[in-house]
């Protein structure tokens, strides 16, 4: 209940502080943390804005009672200002960590996105972000390796076919066996996800239904080099060059064919 009430008061305060003013509060908070007090020059340097806009913003903030400010004096946060600033910073950090650790986004990108999102995310959602980050790190079905897998997933898109390999590797680890790794592990991906012009080597023909044999009989056997020629105008069947001739397959049929890009 108490937390709820606090949330509500926070929300009203936040509504009265615009997004850019929040940036000022945040900047002041960091400067104060470093130097006890802030000067307009510090603020303009940190935010990359000119002095006159800093003066205007400071006037607005002091009117709202968030900063102690008078011209030519040092600037500090009021008690209320400090609460708002701390909240903004907390949101920023939580978002940044989520982007960086869970979504596998690079640090500068994560900072940048956090800066822009921190103003609009509500506290409830923010708490969920924080909880989820912790859950992922703790849950045995998750773990850091799983997160790393997500990064790979994001780079290469969805493919079921890799699951088998991943799970067996996972089981190997659980059983204490070291997964066999020859140099850089080359992940095999589904033929469906290759782009026109990409050349690859077939690793396994494992399509669903009884058409494996048909596909194999058309020359799509293990180790064969193939090249994606093109995708049909309406986006479905794809054309593959194999053993010197052209073969067409639907994407659903190509899905089960694992290949290594060469």
């Amino acid at each position, binding site marked *: 209940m108490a937390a709820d009430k606090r949330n509500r008061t926070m929300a009203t305060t936040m509504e009265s502080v615009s997004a850019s003013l929040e940036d000022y509060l945040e900047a002041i908070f960091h400067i104060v943390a470093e130097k006890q007090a802030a000067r307009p020059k510090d603020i303009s340097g940190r935010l990359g804005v000119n002095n006159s806009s800093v003066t205007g913003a400071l006037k607005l903030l002091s009117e709202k009672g968030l900063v102690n400010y008078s011209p030519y004096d040092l600037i500090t946060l009021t008690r209320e200002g400090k609460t708002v600033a701390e909240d903004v910073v907390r949101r920023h950090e939580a978002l940044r960590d989520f982007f960086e650790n869970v979504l596998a986004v690079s640090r500068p990108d994560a900072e940048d996105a956090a800066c822009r999102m921190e103003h609009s995310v509500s506290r409830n959602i923010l708490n969920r972000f924080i909880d989820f980050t912790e859950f992922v790190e703790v849950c045995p079905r998750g773990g850091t390796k799983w997160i790393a897998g997500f990064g790979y997933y994001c780079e290469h898109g969805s493919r079921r076919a890799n699951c088998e390999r991943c799970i067996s590797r996972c089981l190997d680890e659980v059983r204490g066996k070291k997964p066999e790794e020859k140099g850089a592990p080359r992940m095999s991906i589904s033929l469906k996800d290759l782009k026109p012009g990409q050349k690859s080597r077939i690793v396994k023909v494992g399509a669903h239904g009884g058409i494996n044999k048909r*596909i194999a*009989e*058309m020359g799509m056997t293990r180790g064969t080099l193939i090249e994606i020629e093109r995708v049909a105008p*309406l986006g479905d*069947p794809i054309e593959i060059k194999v*053993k010197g*001739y*052209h073969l*067409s397959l*639907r994407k659903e049929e190509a899905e089960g064919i694992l290949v290594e890009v060469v």
Partner: protein
Amino acid sequence: MTRKRIVVALAGNPNSGKSTIFNDLTGAHQHVGNYPGVTVEKKEGACRHDGREITVVDLPGTYSLSAYSIEELVARNVIIDEKPDVVVDIVDASNLERNLYLAVQIMELGVPLVLAFNMSDVARARGIEFDLEKLSRFLGAPIVPTVGHKGKGTKELLDAVVAAATRKTAQDMPNIDYGREVEEEILKIAAALQTEASSADARHVRWLAVKLLEGDKNVREKVSRTVQEITEKSESHLAKIFGDPAEIIITDRRYGFISGACQEAVRSTVEARHTMSDRIDAVATSRVLGLPIFLGLMYLVFHLTFTLGDPPMGWIEKFFGWLGGVLETWWPKGSESILKSLLVDGIIGGVGGVIVFLPNILLLFLAIAILEDSGYMARAAFIMDRLMHKIGLHGKSFIPMLLGFGCSVPAIMATRTLENQRDRLTTMLVTPLISCGARLPIYALIIPAFFPGRLHAPMLWTIYIIGIVLAIVSAKVLRTTIFRGESTPFVMELPPYRIPTLKGILLHMWERGWLYLKKAGTVILGISILLWGMTNFPKKQTFDRDYETQTRQAEAACLDDVRGLNSKFGLATGSDILVRAIQAELDMAAEQKKHHETEPGFAEAAKRKDAAIEALGRQDGGDRLMKFLEVRQAIRDARAAFDGAVLEKKLVEGTPGYFAARSGCDAALANLQKAEPEVYAAAIRYLDNIRSSFEGAAEDVAKARQAEELAYTISGRIGHALEPILKPLGFDWKIGTALIGAFAAKEVFVAQMGIVYSVGEADEKSEALREKLKADYSPLIAFCIMLFCLTSAPCMATIAITRRESNSWGWALFQLGALTVLAYVLTLCVFQLGSILGIG
């Protein structure tokens, strides 16, 4: 023994040029049929070589012998069961590895094999060099290089065939080594097989064992439970070792064998570069241009089919018209001979009506043959597959459905390109829902009669769209109910583009056209006679109304009016010479109806009339009579000249040409009027009032008689009997009768309605018929008629062709029944709902 006829089976991949070689070998000595029980085409031909008779059996083109499709099973069964003396495998040398896969399987069967390396010129141009001797040793079969479309190598091929057939010792054929683990399992299964049937030779047993391991259902069904169990054990054992099913391992090893052989005996001297075909495809199947090019080509096919086909259609129509005319002269004019009616109306009318479409159909088949032989057909399927797959069909189904807009018959014949039987039947069954050209006359009659001008185009469009939607929905329903199952995989070769040979496409066209003609000669002939009988029998002998008296009454009324003309141009009121002259004319017309123009009776009647009029001319007031007749003739001539000019020069009202003809006619009439105003007025009155109203009355009587006759016939009675069933749809017996006629051919509906409504020879432009329809039916009923005609039982030609193509009366009758039921239910819903809502 040595003079025995040699039987050669021709095997090969699709697109390997097999049919070209077959044509080279056999020339015109071909026989096309079907393999018993299946719809796979069977072609046989014969030739002579070295004084030996050779029979060539063309096997269906396949990539493998795994019994994956009916074609593969048929090809395999012919090789195993019919034991041809030699199997010739046509190999596309420019695409060697995949083509050799089939060769290796034939080799495993252990039959005498000769390989024809076809398109060896293409292969050489691509810089591929073969060590034929080495390859021949690897594969255990002689190899003959050929160039099918130039007829090169045919003689050498026949030499090799004769040599292989007459060889004393068995051909030494290598076995493929499937690797230690697989070979162990093969031995186990072979041992089990051997104990059960000791007589089989070792090679065949090994083949059976391999096929069992490959999971071949056809072979598996034929072996005992024990063998099946051993096979299953072996399979799971191999799957554990390799992580792949045995069938994949075996395919892998076969390709391994092939690439091993190719590595040693084939050398590619030029780096693979983009061929002409690749460059065409870069445009023809590109994301941007692929669809427009496809649609453009389809439009072109349609356009050519219907525009180029028009003139010969006219000739055929004329020919049948002439033939009917000639036959008619065998009987006296106006004869009611049943035989004449059967020949002229039944047989020539029915069969002629179907043969008229032959030019269209031949052109369509020509276009399809060109598209197929050039390799574009596979691209069309490639482009359309996404759409067709959504309704559970294969990309190749698109072409037949598109052709359905022209005529269902060639459309259903075009389903032959579909490999999967389920896809084929589905496409065949729903194609009649696509509104064909023959249904257009029905819409053209009804829409202008019931709907205002601004609704014409939207109405027509709606009907066509309803057809398309129904076809799509039905296809989807069929694929999820009766023809449920995995949709056919789209594992399809896109063969290189080739310039089709004239001989090839003409043969293709002719084969299919011939089937169509044969159908016209058999099934359609039969149904035509049946329908003719139904609309002609039983003959009504005593009529409800006395038409003879009615005709005479009309005649008397006419003559009465004529008598009234006497005073108008200075003839004595009591004079009967004018009446007698007109009477003489009417008598002549009645007499002439009984004779052909060429018969003496025809001219004699005219002579009698002339003599009678001449005699009348000498009587009192004869000069006035002659004047009257003369002026009347002059008016007729002037009008006829005008009509003739309009018809001949196709003049349109409002154009200068039309105006000139018009004013010429008016001037002539004005001159006549000036010279003899009284006579002119009387003649005009005679022509425009008396004569025309008499003709109208006589025609009405004739039509009423025709209508009564039709109501009495079987189809009229069926129409009446159907009335209770058709009532809920808003239809009466007249529509019922016309619908029976529509079964012969959809456009007959219009003619039949014309007869029922006694407006004589009606076509879709008949305003008289439209007026009568408007008086009897509401727009809602009119819409229901169109809906019913669109959906209901396709015409007899469609049913006949479905029977032929599906090889079963069952499917043909199912199509007939299901579509009729669909039409009934749909129309019922629309009519009842519309009535409740108060539409129309």
